[in-house]
């Protein structure tokens, strides 16, 4: 069983539907260059979904999310970029820690589990890849994932 990275349009259709429900002011664009076969599509799916949902939650009003997939030599490089609320510099080193979160339920006060990004990092590293996060205050936040195609 394997799929092709291009077939991930499932994700784009899915998230577009979600955005319509949550906040139609968010504009999301998908951009795929190149193609490769993906056996562990479930993991890639989970990684992308987590990052995109984070991006949606970071957006407040008229914001843009850009998801880009690129096959460069032997790497699949995926970036998820948003221009919503940024991650502050002193928090950035801790975002992949288990249990770290900035989110909580406004009604009940319950903290988010702080598992999402930790899970994304574990999955990426399990695929032999790397993940990096950058954030520029008042500009954008960018997550970059590179995974060797051979491991996909």
């Amino acid at each position: 069983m394997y799929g092709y990275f291009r077939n991930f349009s499932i994700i784009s259709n899915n998230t577009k539907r979600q955005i319509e429900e949550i906040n139609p002011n968010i504009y999301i664009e998908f951009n795929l260059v190149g193609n490769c076969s993906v056996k562990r599509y479930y993991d890639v799916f989970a990684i992308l979904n987590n990052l995109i949902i984070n991006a949606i939650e970071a957006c407040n009003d008229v914001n843009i999310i850009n998801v880009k997939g690129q096959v460069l030599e032997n790497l699949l490089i995926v970036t998820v970029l948003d221009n919503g609320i940024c991650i502050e510099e002193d928090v950035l080193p801790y975002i992949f820690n288990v249990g770290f979160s900035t989110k909580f339920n406004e009604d009940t006060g319950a903290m988010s589990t702080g598992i999402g990004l930790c899970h994304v990092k574990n999955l990426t590293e399990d695929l032999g890849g790397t993940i990096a996060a950058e954030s520029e205050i008042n500009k954008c936040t960018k997550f970059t994932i590179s995974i060797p195609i051979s491991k996909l």
Partner: protein
Amino acid sequence: MEATFMIIDDDIAIGKILEQTIKKNQFGRVLSILTTGKNAKDTIIKLNPDIILIDLLLPEVDGIEIVKRAMDSGYQGKFIMISQVEEQEMISNAYKSGILFYINKPINMIETISVISNVKKQVELEQSISVIKNIIFPETIQKTEEVKKEVQQSISEKLLQIFSDIDIVGTSGADELKLVILRIIDKKEMHPSKPYQLKEIYMEVAKELYGNMLATINCKSMEQRIRRTIGKSMNAVANLGLENLNNNIYMKYSSSLFEIKQIKQEMEHLKDLSVEQGKINTKKFIEGILVKVLN
């Protein structure tokens, strides 16, 4: 009023969440986040924050013990305990030790925010009352100030003793060296796990001494003066060793502040001035002094 905070939790993720909460709600400034109970009491006394958020279960020294020790040493701020312990007895022990509130983990944000906010109100109230008290009864000047000074004084005294042992008292480099060392101690207390950059410390001290405008120019020459001072101390220690290898001061400082090979070299130089001098290692020298001062 801006309140000051300190957070003690072995899970840095929790520490950061609490710091963010304090920042976002504009409760005040977080002076330090510690991840172990070791030295926590000393840091509390030194920084004297208004409010401390503390975990119960901590490596080295547990939360209740820290609360007791800090209060015994004259700390008068407020403790909020945040922990996962559900055993009623431990929670009541925590209250008996002097905490103001106990918050259960996993954290409930609404609970945490309102507890911090209420404790902050209490701090503000007490501070206003103390201001009024000080006007009416000026002789009751707070004891905490004295305790804080005592810790700093003992470090200064130890430094002076070391400087007099290695014969650099009174040189201009020695005074600057002292400021550099005190600043490093401050840094280590605020961020125990973060390594310090000597260059940055020099720059900060230079700014303190010469102001922002002239700091860069003076920083280099200050570094030179400090190096010369350390060189002078090496010379003094080597001189003592030359006379008698069992000299107390030689034995105490030769290997802790200098590289032993270099101090031997300096002794050769003293015997025969045509031989090259021993080289100093500023970082090793400062680390050596830190070990002596902080223990």
